[in-house]
């Protein structure tokens, strides 16, 4: 069976409709509707693929409402490759949503993300606009700082012990996180460098919005930008997840070998001799970015690296998504904030007012917009490095 969506038939039939995914789906949790659940979305994909239902507005909405957190995959006993099914469906549907959203996505993803210099220039313009109070607060954008936009004090290229992948939005809006990551990496005795030309963007946002061809081009450039066999350290969980999947995305042995070198920041750090840190006794609530927990399944490392300096507190929500989802918080603000309400409540139950550790820029911005004090594990560690 291969219909209009050209989905992998074996992946599609693997779902036995048991429903164990339901409580792990953020959009199902806030709506209670089958169509907003993994099981419902798969049934809808099957119906469209089999020609039993049209790929109409209701279907497009069902697919577009998925945050692609992939919490369902970790919960699925049948191993349904839900993330890949949604990516392929998005690719078959093409860009969706109202014209202004498609236009904004085209500017962000086709024009800015692949050209990092342009993105940084645009960020300066945005910063100026923020100072002139021209940017409405409801957009939930982080408050940009000129100091953060200073160039990174890192050599480009060469043959370092570890590469630090800067990425697109992260390097434009949250460069301080990279500074902190570089400090911690150096504190372990490793020589760290940033990639040479071509590492503008990992392609994750493109892949999640169905722009697979562009995602592949960006991925191929990223692979070429960090030659050799040094580990590639990524301090954005969303980027790391897709970079670990480059082997499948590009289908070449080189991409597979590159993917095997990719590590989340905490994951890499946990394999190193621990840097000397001061024990603070301060409480930190760990928020697991979905693509670290459900896709990379490397969230345990965040706890290992923070444990020496902080008292770690867990939330009781089984790693349910916070609603950020890359561009999702901007394109689906109502659902994104309903999902976030649950996460904010879970963090409040765990340790009211505590600092939150999050290893992903999207989650960080989304939760900060709700008033939480959110830091990257690298920042929390850089703060307490001895000496």
């Amino acid at each position: 069976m291969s219909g209009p969506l050209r989905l992998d038939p074996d992946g599609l039939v693997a779902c036995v409709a048991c429903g164990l995914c339901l409580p792990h789906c953020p959009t199902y949790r806030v709506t209670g509707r089958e169509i907003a659940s993994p099981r419902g979305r798969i049934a809808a994909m099957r119906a469209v693929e089999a020609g039993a239902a049209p790929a109409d507005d209701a279907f497009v909405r069902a697919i577009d409402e998925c945050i692609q957190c992939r919490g369902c995959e970790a919960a699925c006993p049948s191993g349904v490759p839900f993330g890949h099914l949604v990516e392929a469906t998005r690719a078959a549907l093409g860009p969706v949503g109202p014209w202004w959203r498609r236009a904004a996505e085209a500017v962000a993803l086709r024009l800015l993300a692949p050209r990092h210099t342009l993105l940084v220039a645009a960020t300066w313009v945005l910063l100026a606009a923020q100072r002139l109070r021209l940017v409405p607060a409801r957009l939930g954008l982080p408050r940009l700082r000129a100091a953060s936009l200073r160039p990174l004090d890192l050599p480009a290229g060469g043959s370092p012990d570890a590469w630090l992948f800067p990425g697109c939005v992260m390097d434009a809006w949250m460069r301080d996180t990279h500074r902190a990551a570089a400090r911690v990496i150096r504190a372990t005795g490793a020589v760290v460098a940033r990639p040479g030309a071509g590492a503008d963007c990992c392609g994750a946002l493109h892949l999640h919005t169905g722009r697979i061809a562009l995602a592949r081009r960006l991925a191929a450039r990223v692979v070429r930008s960090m030659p050799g066999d040094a580990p590639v350290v990524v301090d954005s969980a969303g980027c790391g997840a897709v970079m670990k999947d480059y082997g499948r995305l590009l289908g070449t042995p080189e991409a597979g070998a590159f993917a095997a070198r990719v590590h989340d920041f905490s994951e890499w750090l946990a394999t190193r001799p621990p840097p000397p840190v001061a024990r603070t006794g301060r409480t930190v609530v760990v928020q697991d970015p979905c693509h670290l927990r459900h896709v990379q399944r490397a969230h345990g490392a965040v706890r290992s690296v923070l444990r020496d300096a902080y008292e770690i507190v867990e939330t009781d929500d089984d790693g349910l998504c916070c609603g950020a989802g890359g561009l999702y918080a901007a394109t689906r603000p109502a659902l994104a904030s309903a999902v976030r309400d649950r996460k904010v409540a879970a963090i409040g139950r765990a340790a009211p007012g505590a600092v939150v550790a999050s290893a992903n820029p999207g989650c960080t911005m989304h939760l900060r917009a709700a008033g939480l004090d959110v830091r990257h594990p690298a920042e929390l560690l850089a703060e307490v490095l001895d000496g």
Partner: protein
Amino acid sequence: MLGTANATAEPLELALYARDAGVAEGHAVAVCWPATGAQLAAAVRVARAHGRPFVVRGSGTGLAGGATPLGDPVVIVTTRLDRILEVDARSRVAWVEPGVLNLDLSRAVRHLGLHYAPDPSSQQACTIGGNVGTNAGGPHCLAYGVTSAHVLAVEVVLPDGEVALLGGLAPDEPGYDLRGCFVGSEGTMGAATRIAVRLTPDPPEVATMLCAFASVEDAAATVSETIASGVLPAALEMMDAPITRAVEDFVGAGYPRDAQAVLLVEVDGLPAGVAEQAAQVEAIARAHGATAVRTAADEAERALLWKGRKSAFGAIARIAPDYYLHDAVVPRTRLVEVLGEIARIAAAHRLLVMNVFHAGDGNLHPLIVFDGREPGTWQRVRAAGTAILEACLDAGGVLTGEHGVGVEKRDLMPRLFGPDDLDAQARLRDAFDPDGAANPMKVLPRGSRCGELQRVPEGTWI
């Protein structure tokens, strides 16, 4: 009252409510998602005013087609009725709405040292309302009792839209036990809007053991001997070789891949008693040829062992894309014989059958796995399923242990009940629902009432 956003007749959404986790398909004319008891009652009244029956469902994890919409009904979904209304830790009672997830309730009272005891394998996803509907069981119901033993009172919307409170918090409510009638009525007597459940104190000590055997016979003999010895384990579960391997592929909990049968045994209580009972179970297992006995070292290992057991049904998709899961109870003493017969039936129909079940109370779950894309497979699966259920009945068993009758086993009810029994049940149902508007065509087969013909509309494919 509900607002247009919380009700729909959009074809794609209707299609997604055509079935639950079972295989029977029906058709809904509308679906709605009330957020309060009053809205749910209004939905029932609107359906009735338009001459429609109604089907209430929670998460749709049922396997007997109990939530399959037959007779072109309005489907009323309880997922937004998900508030825990009141927890009284001293009386160990909680009032909850029907859409509260089973595991969410236990989590919410964990800090009080309490939990909700019935724990179906789908407990992370299934709702308390659905549990009440099917009188759900679970591994720990061997010692703690099934849902009925944990439901004190139910506020229901009767099929005519009136609201009634059945049962109460007193230990022995005066009058007939209408609460007892309602629990397990599979939505045929109305819809729960609030449920008072009993909360159970967490046992001070728990030991979870995994025993591996070289034959199903050895495992079954261990089960019988354990119960006969006077030990009442909190749970006593059996898995055969194929399902054990499928589960191990999913959870990696250290289930032995080479065992022909595995028992998961849990004993709980005061520390001294637990140690003694665990030693007793281990001795019995070893006397019956257990090749390995392992006790979970900590809570994490215990949780992993249970995750394996509770993911068993979903994990079979790693073997074949479709499954048909049955639910029947046989006398414990005849387990070995019935398991052998099930294997013979499966072989005769050229099908693979696996077994994972609540061995302690003889509640079998034969699981037929197949690829429905191969022509003719479904016919063989249905024929084998019926033969398996008949074999269980012939061994002195009953049709269902915990999944309910739904539509799946409706037509086998006359194998278990005579005409007078069925008539009495039909009249009880009529007392709640004289017009047959609540979940029509479920539980009782057509012709259950003496001298009546089926009154619900025809034409639905099931």
